[in-house]
């Protein structure tokens, strides 16, 4: 489809770009006025355009992007979590109000990049969209200009991120060299015929490094705890949800189309001849979840602990990804949806606690269970869900992940590692619960009660219960995306 015809499938992205640019200009013109109304209206319009967006476009912009149900679903969950972060960010005490417009604009640019990540099918777009997410993220991590931790977080992020994307680019260049095309469907046709698997192995590993850094997979997870701890909490909440979903979307699409002999998102994937990346992913996922859980045990800082918990959840999702069945990607998509919202609710609670009680360590959370009883109860619900216990949606999601693993009968050892890790993770989630209810209270009374933050915490926590009892409609809906 040519460029002009493609524009009708690209309207949300266009509006995001216009909004981001307009937010900056608006800040220059009216220096005092808040842009909350402007951004809220723009977000509403973007939601409406997403609702109107058809999902049958196929390849658009001359084979640069693809418009399908898979990308549309990921756009929705990315949009909801990013929109919630943008709306809640006005309650963050850490951010300088003077830079609020820049913050909104940067988040909107990252949103644009994540939208493109979900539907890139060209090596150029894969690289550009990952960079479009990364570069504003470096700035977001360093939003607190005078805070040493924030500086350090952004320094580590920029060095690690550009290094990983450099390695990925080298892998992409080899992929281009052996195939002569940058469209992944075209490349797929060529690499079937190549009998030397080492060249494909090399580019596969380098590309896995680039994607693995985005989703914080095991050997590339080093940036995660430091960046999560040093960034402003609202930015950490954002990093832990939407970019992970976008990273998984691009990982699933690229690997299922390029490096399988089935070349499709709708059937169980079979490996290319001589290239067994499933085992590599299985080993990495075992490492990811073990490292995440074991290191989380000794953390005192809440944000750092949740960072390691994110790593372990990525490990669980990679565990299902290593089986490469169609059930597995349905399970990942389902779990990702639930995980994003339970994690966001936990992080919003951390923001609320930091704003009101000025505490950062787990053992300082004493007495919060009695000072804000409703929010604390919902925080417990989110933590139980993150730990994967019934009666919460985290349990349902985890059951599906393990079910796909045992159904394919490939990596039983990985299932055992996963179950052991689930048990370990109970300890550190319940450390927070114990602190909230049983530790001695050292904190003051709750000062202000921001309604919107309350609303999002309650909404995102309520899904833990709702999807425990009514997960079937959502699961069926996701299953239909891959048919």
């Amino acid at each position: 489809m040519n460029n002009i015809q493609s524009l009708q499938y690209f309207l949300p992205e266009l509006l995001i770009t216009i909004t981001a640019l307009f937010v900056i200009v608006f800040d220059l013109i009216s220096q005092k006025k808040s842009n909350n109304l402007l951004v809220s209206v723009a977000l509403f319009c973007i939601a409406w355009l997403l609702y109107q967006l058809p999902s049958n476009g196929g390849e658009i912009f001359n084979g640069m992007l693809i418009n399908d149900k898979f990308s549309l679903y990921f756009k929705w969950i990315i949009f909801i979590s990013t929109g919630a972060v943008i709306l809640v960010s006005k309650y963050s005490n850490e951010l300088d109000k003077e830079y609020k417009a820049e913050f909104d604009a940067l988040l909107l640019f990252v949103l644009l990049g994540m939208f493109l990540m979900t539907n890139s099918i060209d090596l150029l777009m894969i690289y550009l969209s990952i960079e479009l997410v990364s570069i504003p993220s470096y700035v977001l991590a360093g939003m607190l200009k005078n805070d040493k931790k924030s500086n350090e977080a952004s320094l580590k992020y920029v060095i690690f991120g550009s290094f990983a994307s450099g390695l990925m680019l080298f892998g992409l260049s080899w992929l281009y060299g052996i195939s002569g095309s940058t469209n992944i469907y075209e490349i797929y046709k060529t690499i079937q015929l190549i009998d030397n698997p080492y060249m494909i192995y090399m580019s596969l590993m380098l590309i896995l490094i680039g994607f693995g850094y985005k989703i914080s997979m095991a050997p590339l997870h080093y940036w995660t705890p430091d960046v999560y701890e040093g960034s402003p909490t609202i930015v950490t909440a954002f990093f832990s949800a939407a970019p992970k979903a976008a990273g998984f979307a691009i990982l699933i699409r690229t690997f299922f189309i390029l490096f399988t002999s089935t070349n499709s998102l709708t059937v169980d994937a079979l490996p290319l001849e001589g290239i067994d990346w499933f085992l590599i992913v299985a080993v990495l996922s075992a490492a990811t979840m073990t490292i995440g859980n074991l290191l989380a045990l000794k953390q005192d800082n809440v944000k750092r602990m949740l960072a390691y918990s994110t790593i372990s959840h990525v490990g669980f999702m990679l565990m299902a990804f290593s089986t490469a069945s169609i059930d597995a990607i349905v399970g990942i998509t389902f779990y990702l949806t639930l995980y994003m919202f339970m994690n966001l609710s936990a992080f919003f609670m951390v923001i609320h606690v930091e704003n009101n009680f000025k505490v950062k360590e787990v053992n300082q959370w004493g007495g919060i269970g009695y000072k804000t009883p409703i929010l604390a109860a919902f925080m417990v619900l989110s933590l139980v869900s993150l730990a994967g216990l019934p009666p919460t949606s985290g349990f349902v999601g985890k059951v599906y992940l393990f079910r796909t693993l045992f159904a394919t009968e490939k990596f039983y050892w990985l299932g055992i590692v996963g179950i052991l890790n689930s048990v370990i993770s109970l300890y550190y989630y319940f450390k927070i619960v114990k602190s909230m209810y049983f530790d001695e209270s050292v904190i003051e009374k709750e000062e202000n009660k921001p309604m919107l933050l309350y609303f999002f915490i309650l909404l995102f926590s309520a899904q833990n219960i709702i999807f425990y009892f009514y997960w079937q409609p959502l699961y069926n809906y996701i299953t239909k995306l891959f048919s």
Partner: protein
Amino acid sequence: MNYIQPFLMLASILFCLGLYAVITRKNAVAILMGIELILNSANINFITFNRFGAYRTLDGHVFTIFVIVLAAAEAAVALAIIINLFKNIGTVDVDQAKEMKG
């Protein structure tokens, strides 16, 4: 067609040098230079494959131009971050950035 090999070797050498710089250097600016070397080695690869691969399109050239632009953007952001770090802790040594551990 035999000329392709020296160019690919050049790219590989540049890639290894960049990797070496990133791993061993302590100075943040030097690490950034290593990353630039890695990006440029990929650029040489793209151009070489496009020139000698007998492909009809100019995809490799276009890709290279985009990479150059992105490398500039990335370097700008990274240098801004490094300058900010220098203002706050008075050094650009990455080993001195150790507020957070564990």
